[in-house]
């Protein structure tokens, strides 16, 4: 394993130093990333966070029209309550704070603890759980939060920027999650700096279906196939859970080690699939947004838009990772 790091122990801190140096719009203190111009009085604050290794998620989405603060944990490790408490207090502009939490046991527990411990700030939470690879049953920790997190952060962020109250911001965040589904496929494992070797072995001939974003192995291993078939596999899993219809927001997301060219190849197939079902790709995003270190592979996230969600998606955003 070769990585552009100084040491496995300092990688998160070092990367945050780089972010601070690169983005004057951010302020970074005690492993929390803030908008330099926040908090804004009367605006609902948005706080998210989770393990590092998914860049640009979440810290890259701090800025106008999206998050007010992000709490990056160690690699693939949920942040600790201290970070979340600090962030929540700091971004409160008097209108309360929304926690956007990906559904992982660790994230849920740490955000819950923090929410309980914050005093004087009204806190609401939305749980993102869009990954159809995981059954939401008594036999699992519930669906994982993956690509839809970006949609939730963007759309809730836009509504908060308009001055909507906490309840409404939380409601739209929940609606986006309910209307969104994801599925991911890995061509390779990722390698965490501490482990120093791939989390799982995946032969040249196979891919993992239904992976998460932490290098967890997927639900099944199948032979490698052309992009068309892999895209269809992902889309069938999504369509089987939430039928594709109407106007869709579609993201083809790289897992970190896959070049953009291949993501466009996949997007072409995804778009053709959507068309085949009589639905429409109304908005789209192609790139590395919710990653898993250096993993090669992709995920697709689909959200059924309505007029409000489309308007909020289109609203201006100005963050290191998303800007228009």
């Amino acid at each position: 394993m070769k990585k552009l790091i100084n040491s496995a122990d300092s990688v998160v801190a070092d990367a945050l130093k780089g972010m601070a140096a690169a983005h004057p719009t951010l302020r970074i203190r005690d492993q929390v990333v803030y908008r330099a111009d926040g908090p804004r009085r009367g605006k609902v604050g948005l706080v998210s966070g989770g393990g590092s290794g998914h860049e640009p998620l979440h810290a890259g989405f701090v800025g106008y029209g999206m998050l007010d603060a992000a709490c990056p944990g160690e690699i693939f490790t949920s942040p600790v309550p201290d970070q979340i408490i600090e962030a929540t207090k700091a971004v409160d502009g008097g209108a309360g704070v929304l926690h956007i939490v990906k559904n992982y046991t660790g994230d849920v527990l740490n955000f819950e603890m923090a929410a309980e411990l914050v005093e004087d700030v009204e806190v609401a939470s939305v749980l993102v759980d869009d990954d159809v690879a995981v059954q939401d049953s008594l036999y699992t920790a519930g669906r994982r939060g993956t690509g839809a997190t970006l949609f939730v952060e963007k759309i809730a962020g836009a509504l908060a920027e308009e001055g909507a109250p906490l309840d409404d911001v939380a409601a739209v965040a929940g609606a986006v999650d309910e209307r969104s589904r994801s599925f991911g496929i890995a061509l390779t494992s990722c390698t965490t700096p501490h482990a120093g070797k791939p989390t799982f072995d995946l032969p040249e001939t196979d891919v993992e279906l239904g992976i998460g974003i932490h290098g967890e192995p997927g639900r099944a291993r199948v032979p490698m196939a052309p992009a068309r078939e892999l895209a269809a596999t992902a889309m069938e899993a999504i369509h089987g859970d939430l039928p594709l219809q109407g106007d869709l927001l579609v993201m083809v997301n790289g897992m970190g080690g896959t070049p953009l060219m291949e993501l466009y190849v996949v997007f072409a197939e995804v778009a053709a699939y959507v068309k085949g079902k009589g639905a429409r790709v109304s908005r789209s995003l192609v790139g590395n947004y919710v990653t898993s270190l250096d993993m090669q592979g992709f995920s697709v996230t689909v959200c059924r838009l309505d007029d409000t969600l489309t308007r909020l998606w289109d609203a201006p955003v100005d963050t290191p990772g998303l800007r228009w």
Partner: protein
Amino acid sequence: MDTDLFVAWFEETARLVRRDRDRLTRLDAAIGDADHGTNLDRGLTEVRKALTEWPPESPVQVLTSAGTALIRRVGGASGPLYGSVFRQMGKALDSPVTLAGFSAAFDEGVVAVERLGKAAPGDKTMVDALAPASRALALAVRDGVGVREAFEQAARAAAEGARATIPMQARKGRASYLGERSIGHEDPGAASSALFMAALATVAS
């Protein structure tokens, strides 16, 4: 059982976790996200620091301080869970500390984890090592065995409990995403729980 014993418990655990850090991470790589050893090692380093910088004056203070340090530094699922074991145990512990008191308080800690993690024995989590350890302590109290012997029985029960997670299919935590593919691997949290109990047996002897 005095303050020093409780401090020694965490110091010995820190040593064992440092020694087994890569093994724990490897176990987590197989059915999770390859960070459990690193997480816990970071947390126990913080526990030692906290216990050195603010020397505790009672077993309760050791437990509260350690639990808080774990919550503040581990992150992930195991941080809040282990933190709760020891904070809750600290809340429940009467002084002076007897084996019976220890056993009862420890069990409250385990119940706190079960409640927080919504996990029951058989779900392939740390509960599968902690619950048998707690039961072993309770039995030892009932049978009137000595502290050293009691802790050794608890350590054995935890180790067996950890090993018993191998054939289980995970229903909680990250490993549950794997469905049937989680079968055949030891749960990393159960393995680290066994280290906590092994450390206890060592410092009591």
